[in-house]
C-alpha cells in the first residue's frame, strides 16, 4: 500500500472516530493529540489499524506521544521506519 492510500485510510478512521471533523480537514501536520482530535483511549484502536495497514505488529511499550501527534509522524514512525 502506497503512502497516499495509507494516509487516506488513516484520515477516514480519524474522521469517523472523532465524529466532527472531515477527512479533508486532516492535514499531514494537524496536531491530533494536543488538539484532542483523538484521545489516548483511542490509541489502542489506532494501533490495531496501523498493524493491519502495515502488516507488522507494533510494540507499544516504547512509544511516545510524538509518534501519534500528526499524520506525518504516524506514517514516519510506523510505515517508513518499518520498511527501511
Amino acid at each position, binding site marked *: 500500500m502506497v503512502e497516499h492510500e495509507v494516509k487516506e485510510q488513516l484520515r477516514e478512521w480519524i474522521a469517523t472516530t472523532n465524529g466532527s471533523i472531515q477527512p479533508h480537514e486532516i492535514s499531514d501536520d494537524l496536531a491530533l493529540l494536543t488538539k484532542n482530535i483523538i484521545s489516548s483511549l483511542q490509541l489502542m484502536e489506532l494501533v*490495531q489499524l496501523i498493524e*493491519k495497514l502495515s*502488516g507488522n505488529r507494533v510494540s*507499544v511499550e516504547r*512509544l511516545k506521544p510524538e509518534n501519534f501527534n500528526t499524520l506525518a509522524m504516524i506514517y514516519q514512525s510506523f510505515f517508513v521506519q518499518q520498511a527501511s
Partner: protein
Amino acid sequence: MSEKNIVNLVDTLCRASSNKYVDFGAINVWPETLEGQWCMSPELLSVWGTETYERLNLEERKRLSFYEAVNFFCLNIHGEKPLVKGLVERLYTYDDEDVSKYLHYFLDEENKHLAYFGTFCRKYAGKIYDDKKIEFPQDRDTLETDFLFFVKVQIFEEIVDVYNTRMAADERLAPIARAINKAHHIDETRHLAFGRRYSEILFSRWSAGVSSERKQAMRDYLAKYLLVTWKEYYRSEVYEDAGLVSGVGPATDLANELFLAESQISLRREVSENCVRNLMLAGILDRQPEME
C-alpha cells in the same frame, strides 16, 4: 460509605489478609504440558456464541482456550504491574494513614499474582503478550490522579474477578488453570472490597471541587475506559497463535468481527453487570455504558 467507616474496613481486611496469607510456593504443581486441556471456560471465550466457535473442532477450541488463557493472564500482568508501581508510590504519602497500612498487604498479594501469571505464560506459551493499552502522562492534580488510579484498578479487577470466579469452579479446566484463578479470586475479593469503598471516597472528595461539566467528562472517560478494557480480550495475536487465521490483517479483522458479535456484546454486558452497578451506586457512573 463514610470516610470513618473505611478505617474499620481496612482493619478487617488487614486481619483477613494476615489470616489467609499464602506463600508463592503454595501453587507448586506445574504439569509439563497442558496439551489437549481446557484452560479457559468455553463460555468465556471471545468466540463463544459465534460462527467461528461452531466452525472449530474440539481440539481447536481447546487450543484457542489455551491462548486466550495466556492473554487473560497477560492482561492481569499488565494490569498489576502499574498497580504495584502505583501502590508503592502511594505508601506513606497519604493523609489516610490507615489506608497505607492495608496497601502493604495489597502490594504483597499483587506481587504473588504476578509471579503465578508470569510463570504460567512463560512455562507454557514461552512468552508474554505485550500491553496494548497506551497511556501518556496527563496534567492532572493529585486527587484526580489518585481517584483515576483506584477506579481504573477497580474496573479492571471487577471484570477479572468474574472470570476468576467462574473458572475457579469449572471442573473441565486443567487443575493449574483453576488453581491460579482460585488463588487470584480469594485475594481479589478483599482488594475489591477496599477498591470499591476507596474509589467512592476519592470520587466524593474530587467531585466536590469540580464543575458538573468536568464531572460528566470524567464519567464519559470512564465509560470509554471500560470499553477499551474489554477490547483487550479480543487480541489478534491469539487468533494467529491458535491457528484460526494467518497474517496480521486477517487476525485484526477477526478480532473486530468477534468484538461486534451479538453474543459477545451480551457476554460483556453480563460480565460487566457488577462493575457497572457498583460504579453507579457510588455515583461514579450515571448510566449504563455502551458495550460496542
